C-alpha cells in the first residue's frame, strides 16, 4: 500500500510534467502563427475599409487571397458588427465571392461549440437564400442548446421561423430557461402572435416563458386584444399575473382600472407591485385612496412604487401624498416623505 502510494505519485507527476512540456512547445508554435495571423488580419481590415468606400472588389479579393479564410471570417465579423447599410452589403458581396459562406458552413459542421455559435451569427449576415438553410440545419440538429437558440434568434431576425411549438421543441426544455428566449419572442414575426397568445395560456409551460410571451405581446401594441392580458391576470402563477398587469399598465386602457385595483391586495408582493405601478400609469385620480393604503405594505418595494404612483395621479395624488407625509402612520409617513424628497438636494 505504502509503496503503491509512492510509485503512483511518481508516475503521475512524470506524466503531468511531460504534458506541460508538450503544451509549452505547442504554445511556441502557436505564437508564431498568431503573429502571422494578426498581420494578415490588419491587412484585411484595411482592405475592407477601402472596399466599403470605393467598391473595388478585385483589390479586396487580391488581399483576401493572401489570407486564410478563418482570418478573413474573423476580421469580417468585426467589420460587419460595426457598419450597416449599403457599405455593409458591398462588403458582404465581396465576402461571398471570396467563398466565406462555404467556409462558415464547414465551421457549422465541424467547429467546436464556440466556433459554431460564432459561425451562426456570421452566416446570418448574408442574403436569406445563403443563410436560411444552414441556420435551419443548426436549429434542428445542433448538439448545443446555445447554438440552437442563436440559430432561432437569427432566423427570427430574417423573418422565417418554424411554428412556435416546433421552435420550442427544437430548443429543448433546458434551453427554455434562458433570458435569450425573451429576446427571441420579441423578434418573432407578427404571424406568430396567435402562437404566443396560446403559449401564455399553456399552464404546463414554465412561468418564466409565459411571462416572456406576455411581454413580447404588449411591446408590439395592437398585436392582440387586451383581453388576453385580462385573462392572464387571474393566473395562479404570480410571475404570469405580474407580467399581465405590467402589460395592462403599459397599454393604458382606463377600463382595466377595476381589475388592477382588485389586485392591490394579491398575496404575492410582486403582483401587488406591478398592480400599483400600473394604476399609477393609468393616472386616474379616483384611484388615489386605494393606492394610499399600499403605503403601509409590508414590502418596501411595494410601498415605494405606491408612493411613486401617487405622484403620477396628478395634483390629487400629490396632495394625498403630502397629507400622508404630515399626518399618516409612521411607515406611511416615512415612505411618503422619502419619495417626495427623492432627487432633491439634501
Amino acid at each position, binding site marked *: 500500500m505504502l509503496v503503491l502510494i509512492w510509485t503512483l505519485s511518481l508516475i503521475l507527476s512524470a506524466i*503531468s510534467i511531460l504534458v*506541460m512540456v508538450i503544451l509549452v512547445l505547442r504554445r511556441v508554435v502557436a505564437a508564431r502563427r498568431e503573429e502571422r495571423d494578426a498581420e494578415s488580419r490588419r491587412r484585411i481590415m484595411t482592405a475592407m475599409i477601402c472596399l466599403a468606400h470605393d467598391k473595388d472588389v478585385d483589390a479586396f479579393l487580391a488581399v483576401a487571397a493572401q489570407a486564410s479564410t478563418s482570418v478573413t471570417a474573423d476580421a469580417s465579423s468585426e467589420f460587419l*458588427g460595426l457598419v450597416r447599410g449599403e457599405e455593409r452589403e458591398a462588403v458582404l458581396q465581396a465576402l461571398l465571392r471570396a467563398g466565406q459562406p462555404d467556409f462558415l458552413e464547414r465551421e457549422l459542421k465541424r467547429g467546436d461549440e464556440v466556433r459554431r455559435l460564432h459561425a451562426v451569427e456570421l452566416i446570418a449576415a448574408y442574403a436569406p437564400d445563403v443563410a436560411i438553410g444552414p441556420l435551419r440545419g443548426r436549429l434542428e440538429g445542433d448538439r448545443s442548446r446555445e447554438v440552437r437558440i442563436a440559430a432561432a434568434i437569427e432566423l427570427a431576425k430574417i423573418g422565417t421561423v418554424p411554428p412556435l411549438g416546433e421552435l420550442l421543441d427544437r430548443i429543448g426544455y433546458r434551453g427554455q430557461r434562458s*433570458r*435569450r428566449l*425573451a429576446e427571441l419572442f420579441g423578434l418573432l414575426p407578427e404571424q406568430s402572435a396567435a402562437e404566443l397568445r396560446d403559449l401564455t395560456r399553456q399552464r404546463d409551460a414554465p412561468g418564466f416563458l409565459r411571462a416572456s410571451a406576455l411581454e413580447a405581446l404588449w411591446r408590439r401594441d395592437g398585436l392582440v386584444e387586451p383581453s388576453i392580458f385580462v385573462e392572464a391576470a387571474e393566473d395562479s402563477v404570480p410571475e404570469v399575473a405580474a407580467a399581465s398587469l405590467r402589460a395592462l399598465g403599459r397599454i393604458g386602457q382606463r377600463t382595466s382600472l377595476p381589475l388592477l385595483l382588485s389586485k392591490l391586495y394579491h398575496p404575492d408582493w410582486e403582483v401587488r407591485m406591478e398592480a400599483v405601478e400600473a394604476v399609477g400609469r393609468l393616472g386616474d385620480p379616483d384611484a388615489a385612496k386605494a393606492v394610499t393604503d399600499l403605503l403601509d405594505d409590508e414590502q418596501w418595494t411595494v410601498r415605494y412604487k405606491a408612493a411613486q404612483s401617487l405622484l403620477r395621479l396628478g395634483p390629487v395624488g400629490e396632495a394625498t401624498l403630502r397629507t400622508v407625509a404630515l399626518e399618516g402612520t409612521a411607515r406611511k409617513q416615512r415612505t411618503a416623505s422619502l419619495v417626495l424628497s427623492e432627487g432633491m438636494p439634501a
Partner: protein
Amino acid sequence: MIEPWSPAIVWAATIIAWAVIALGLAQTTVYLAQLLLAAYALSKRPPVARSALLWRRYGEVAPPIALIVPAYNEEVNIVESVHSMLALEYPNFEVIVVNDGSKDATLERLVEAFGLRRVNRPYEEALAHQPIRGIYSSPMTERLFVVDKSNGGKADAQNAGINICRAPIFCVIDGDSILEPDALMRAAQPFIDDPVRVIAVGGTIRVANGSTIENGRVTQIHLPRRLLPLFQVVEYLRAFLMARLAWSRINTLMLVSGAFGVFRRAEVVAVGGFTKGSLGEDLDLIIKLHRLMIDAGRDYRIEFIPEPVCWTEAPESLAVLSRQRSRWQRGALEGFFRYRSMLFRPRYGRIGFLGMGHILIVDVLGPIAEVLGYVLMPLFWLLGILSWHYFLAFTALVFTYGIVISVCSLILEEAELQRFPRARDLAILTIAAIVENFGYRQLNNIWRIKGYWQFLRQDNNWGEMTRTGIARKDG
C-alpha cells in the same frame, strides 16, 4: 526492528502515521477529484466569446447590476478606480461607492472629482448597518452614487450598499480590485442563461503583480518578478481554476471570493446580508445562501465562471502574506464551526457531506495532519520506530502529489484559457508549480497553524494590509 522500542510505542507510532497518511490521502483524493471535475466542467462550459461579441449577443437582455464598492481610507486610488468602474462595458449598471467612515480624504476626493451633490434617495432598510450620513450623486454621470456612513467594517459597508441599490443583482468587489472591462458582462451570463435558478456567481481572480496597470486596467499580462507573488499565481490558478470550478460544477461551491462576487439581491437580503464581525464573510454568506435555499426546498445554482474577471494585488512580503493567510485560515475555521451543525446532516445533502466535508478535510484537519507529519514522520524513521516506507509515502503525498496537482492546474489553464501571453511564462510557471511544494507549501502550513492558534485564542484582529508593488503607469 533493531532498536529496542516497546511494542506499545511502535503501535502508537503506527497508528499516528496511518492517521496522518490517511488524511493526506483524503486530501489528495479531494484534489484529484476536483481536478477531474474541473476538467469536465471546462470541457462542458458555455462558449466563451470576445467581449464585443458578448455585447452583441447579450446586450439586449442583460439585467441591471449595481456595483458595490466599499472604500476605507482609499484617497490615493479611489478617483481612478471609480473612473475605471464607470467605464466598464455593460448596458445597465450603477456604481455605489460606500465610504466606510474613512479617516482620510476619500469622500472629499470623490466630491471634488465628480462634483458630487447630496441627494435624497429613498431606500429599503432591509439590512442593519451603521448610520448613513449622506448619499451623493454626480451631475456628470447618472451611474454613480456615493454613500457616506459611519465606520462599521467591510461587511457593514456592503450591507449599506445592498440596502441602497435598486438593481435586482449586485456585484461586490474590494476597493483595490481591478476589473476586466467585460467583467460584468461575463458574470451576467449565468443570470441570463438561467435567470430563475442562479442566485450567485463567482469569477476567477488573478494576481496582478508584475503586470502593467494603466489607469485601473491591466493592459499587459506579465508574471511577477519576485518569487513570493509568483508562487501565489500558481496558488490562485489552483484555487480558482481547479477548486472553485470543480465545486460549482456539482453546485457545491462554498466560497465566492469577496474580491469579486455577483449576487441576487433578494436572497442575500433574505439571509440578512453579510455577517458582521466575521473574518470570512464571503464564505459565511455562501453557506448561509446554501442553507436558505435548501431549507426552503428551492432549486438553485451558485455558478462560477473560469474566465478571469478581476485582478488583485498579492502581498509581496512574508509578514503581510503570513497575516493574510492566518486570517483566511481563521475565516475558514469560523465559518466551519459556526455552521458545523450542517456537517454530515442528510438534510443538507451534498452541502453537508461534500461541501462541509471537504472544508473539514482540507481546512480544519489538513494543516494539523501535515505539520504533524513533518515533525513525526522523519522522527519515527530516524529513531527506527517505523520503516522508511511510511516516510516515503508521506513525502509522496506532500511533495509529489502536490506537484501533480499544481502542474495539472496549469495544464487546465493552458489547454482551455491560454491567458498567459508567452511560452516563456508557461515554462516559468511550470517550474514555480514544482518548486512551490518545497518550502512555500510548508510555510503556508505554518501560517495556517498560526491562524488556528489565533482562532482558538479568539484573537480576531484584522491583519493590516499594506499595499505595495503594482507598477502604476499614469498618462
